[in-house]
């Protein structure tokens, strides 16, 4: 292909139609359904039947080798449909889906487990279902069981396992696949905190292996950390495609825009951008720029501009400040740009920094502007929500 590597995953103009509910449950429904299909054939590709809806409409994206793509969006946006199409469980109504290479899917990882089989038997069965060869499973068996932390129970029937143990073992099998393309569906929340951490480290290692990865998740902080690019879906359409940070920001903005309401604000904010890359270490400075305009003459006396910081994905409120606290005077009319310097004394994670117009008399937000996503990484071995900039000295002996 002329020196340029071809994408490993291609989604091209994909449409997917679904049936609402079952088509027919009895002969009484089957006969009219068949008769209907005979009388008006050709309704298969194009328009919708009475009980049908589009789960995906004209979705296109490509994933290059060594790239991780995040797929985000609200429930029912079509994320799982994309994964099912990629894993060849269903076929597109229109368009082209192309995946090159052996695919490994971390989807509902304990799906194949049988309660009456032992852990060992289930590992072999699950491995075979996921396309592993027996010799490969034999080779990795000890590692899988060790990873899941069920070494003492390998010959116990899985029905005696706790649900956490089952999920851990299921994930451990999937995590030891050697795929050429990796699909991940919301498995980042398996097991307890320690196991989740281990899972996440494992995923990061898999992503770094230079294979194409597609991740579907509601854990937006994880998406920001694992993926460089993302697509945002709403009602089956791609409403935004770009960097993961952009898409996550667009998603959370879309979800929470209609929060404040005190009538139209006299000041508008239309852009927020950070001066440095969106990755800082705990305790490091961060500067964001707010661009806006005063649209009502002298409106700036009633309104201030500032930022709200929330953690992702919980939207938990972390910090807020606004220009009135700094006696900053906005122009009487016209555009302005404000720099906000922050010290990110926060624990590791992803944070949403949102531009906000503050009502000075009402002491509440007047209108919310766009957001940007900032990722904070650990500066030194320190834990927790905040970063208290620790120093330590030996005083005695």
């Amino acid at each position: 292909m002329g020196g340029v590597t071809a994408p490993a995953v291609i989604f091209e103009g994909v449409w997917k139609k679904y049936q609402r509910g079952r088509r027919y449950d009895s002969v009484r429904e089957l006969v009219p359904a068949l008769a209907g299909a005979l009388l008006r054939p050709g309704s298969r590709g194009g328009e919708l039947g009475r009980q049908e809806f589009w789960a995906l409409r004209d979705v296109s994206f490509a994933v290059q080798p060594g790239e991780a793509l995040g797929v985000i969006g609200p429930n029912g946006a079509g994320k799982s449909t994309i994964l099912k199409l990629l894993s060849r469980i269903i076929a597109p109504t229109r368009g082209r889906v192309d995946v090159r290479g052996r695919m490994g899917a971390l989807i509902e990882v304990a799906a194949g487990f049988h309660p009456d089989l032992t852990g060992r038997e289930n590992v072999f069965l699950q491995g075979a279902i996921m396309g592993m060869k027996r010799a490969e499973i034999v080779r990795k068996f000890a590692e899988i069981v060790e990873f899941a932390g069920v070494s003492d129970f390998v010959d116990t029937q899985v029905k005696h396992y706790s649900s956490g143990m089952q999920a851990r073992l299921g994930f451990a099998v999937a995590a030891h696949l050697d795929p050429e393309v990796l699909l991940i569906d919301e498995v980042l929340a398996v097991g307890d905190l320690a196991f989740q951490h281990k899972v996440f480290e494992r995923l990061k290692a898999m992503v770094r292996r230079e294979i194409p990865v597609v991740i579907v998740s509601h854990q937006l902080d994880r998406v920001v950390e694992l993926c460089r690019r993302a697509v945002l879906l709403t009602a089956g359409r791609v409403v935004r495609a770009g960097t993961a940070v952009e898409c996550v920001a667009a998603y959370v903005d879309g979800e929470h825009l209609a929060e404040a309401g005190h009538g139209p604000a006299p000041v508008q904010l239309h852009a927020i951008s950070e001066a440095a890359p969106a990755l800082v270490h705990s305790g490091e400075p961060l500067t964001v720029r707010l661009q806006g305009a005063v649209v009502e003459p002298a409106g700036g006396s009633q309104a201030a501009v500032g930022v709200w910081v929330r953690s992702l994905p919980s939207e938990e409120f972390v910090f807020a400040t606004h220009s009135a606290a700094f006696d900053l005077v906005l122009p009487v009319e016209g555009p302005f740009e404000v720099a906000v310097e922050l010290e990110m004394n926060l624990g590791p994670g992803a944070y949403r920094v949102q531009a906000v117009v503050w009502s000075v008399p009402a002491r509440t937000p007047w209108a919310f502007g766009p957001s940007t996503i900032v990722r904070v990484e650990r500066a030194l071995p320190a834990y927790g929500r905040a970063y208290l900039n620790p120093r330590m000295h030996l005083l005695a002996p």
Partner: protein
Amino acid sequence: MFARLRDDLRSMLREQVEYRELLLSVTRRDLLLRYRQTVMGFGWAVFTPLLNLVVFSVVFTHVVPIQTTLPYPIYAYAGLLPWNFFASALRFSMTSLTNNQTLVTRVYFPREIFPFSAVLVGLVDFVVAGTVLAGLMIYYRVGVSASLLFLPVVIAVQLMFTAGLALLVAMANLYLRDVRYAFDAILVVWMFATSVVYPVDRVGGRLGALLALNPMTLIIDAYRAVLLGGELPAPGPFTAAALVSVATLGIAWLVFHRAEIRFAENV
């Protein structure tokens, strides 16, 4: 059209080769589960045909005695053995896709695995139950001859016919759960339309001519010929049965293969 057919046949075979270990794993799972979940385990493979044998022996030697060339119990058991293989493989494969719903809707693998493994489980039961036939042959002093060497061919023909139907019933039950109940009734009728416990050529007339077309009768006749009769199956009828079996498997597999991408939406 031929290009598409060639591509489909190639991908069907390639997938089976690629997933051959999964077929064996699933078969092993099903055998293991039955062995573990039931006290009698493989005893059931012997118990069902033996019970049938006792019932039919009472009916056809005491109530309505019929003439068979061999002692009735051995005649009947040589029919019940392949018939039970056929019927239990189909019953088991009928629910094989619907019972593994979570896997069908979430993981990709060739869906043929489930009906095929149902047939393999039936084949294992068939071999286990076959030991009883060997016992009966010793008891009734029925000698074996070189015709026994032809047995694998007869088994292969039955295997293909059964596998083809297994694919069809598994697929049909996925779309319409009524199929399972309808098929249970069909199996009862089919058994009495086959030379399982009495020779159907006694029926005669137009109905008899119709029954003579039943591939299962031709297959079971072939079993009796090579096992008990010490002769090769009648060439004409057996060739017909073999062709029907190959065609059944070929067509059923192709239909199944082309439809399986839509299974996950119809479970």
